[in-house]
């Protein structure tokens, strides 16, 4: 089972934990990505996330399906935030439940790595003195 969410409201880790909870799974691994207060030492004021929503949801679904197949994951939840985020806010949560724990870590790491490469979501960092679309330029 898969739970994909893309929304402009606070993400709740407990929702993902409850979704992946499963008597067949001995372990679940979570990744929680939060807004850091700095980039290369420069103070970040806030972030703005923008998504090409239908494709973002479909790419997140593809990741969840791959995770289920490659690591025999029982359940996978991927929640991603859009809109304006303050320092410390949660931008993304990935939760994976597998029968054995090694697979849970591998699957969760694969999911966040792949999400950052393929899912059409863009973030802009807002500094005191300007703003930058992250990773846009080499």
């Amino acid at each position: 089972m898969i739970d994909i969410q893309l929304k402009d409201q606070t993400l709740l880790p407990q929702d993902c934990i409850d979704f992946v909870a499963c008597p067949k799974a001995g372990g679940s691994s979570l990744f929680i990505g939060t807004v850091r207060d700095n980039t290369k030492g420069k103070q970040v004021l806030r972030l703005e996330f923008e998504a090409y929503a239908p494709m973002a949801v479909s790419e997140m679904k593809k990741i969840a399906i791959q995770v289920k197949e490659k690591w025999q994951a029982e359940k996978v939840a991927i929640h991603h935030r859009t809109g304006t985020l303050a320092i410390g806010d949660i931008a993304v949560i990935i939760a994976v439940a597998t029968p054995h724990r090694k697979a849970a870590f591998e699957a969760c790491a694969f999911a966040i790595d792949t999400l950052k490469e393929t899912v059409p979501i863009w973030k802009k960092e807002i500094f005191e003195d300007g703003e930058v679309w992250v990773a846009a330029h080499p």
Partner: protein
Amino acid sequence: MKIQVLAFGIAKDIIKDRALEMEVKDGISIVALKAQLCELYPDFEQLRSLNIAVNADYQNDDFILSEKDEIVILPPVSGG
């Protein structure tokens, strides 16, 4: 043919709009569309990568576009 191209992230800043109407030759490929975009807006050449999504899916450079496709400029993604 006339196509509508949507833009997100920095692509929106480059074309200074959320969408762009373009006159392109019939049966244009993605690689040719990218070349045409770079000619109109040289800032696209400065990006780390430039992809075109068709109907909410990645497509290769040789993919042929048609008028009814939903065409989206994807600058380098940075979610997570």
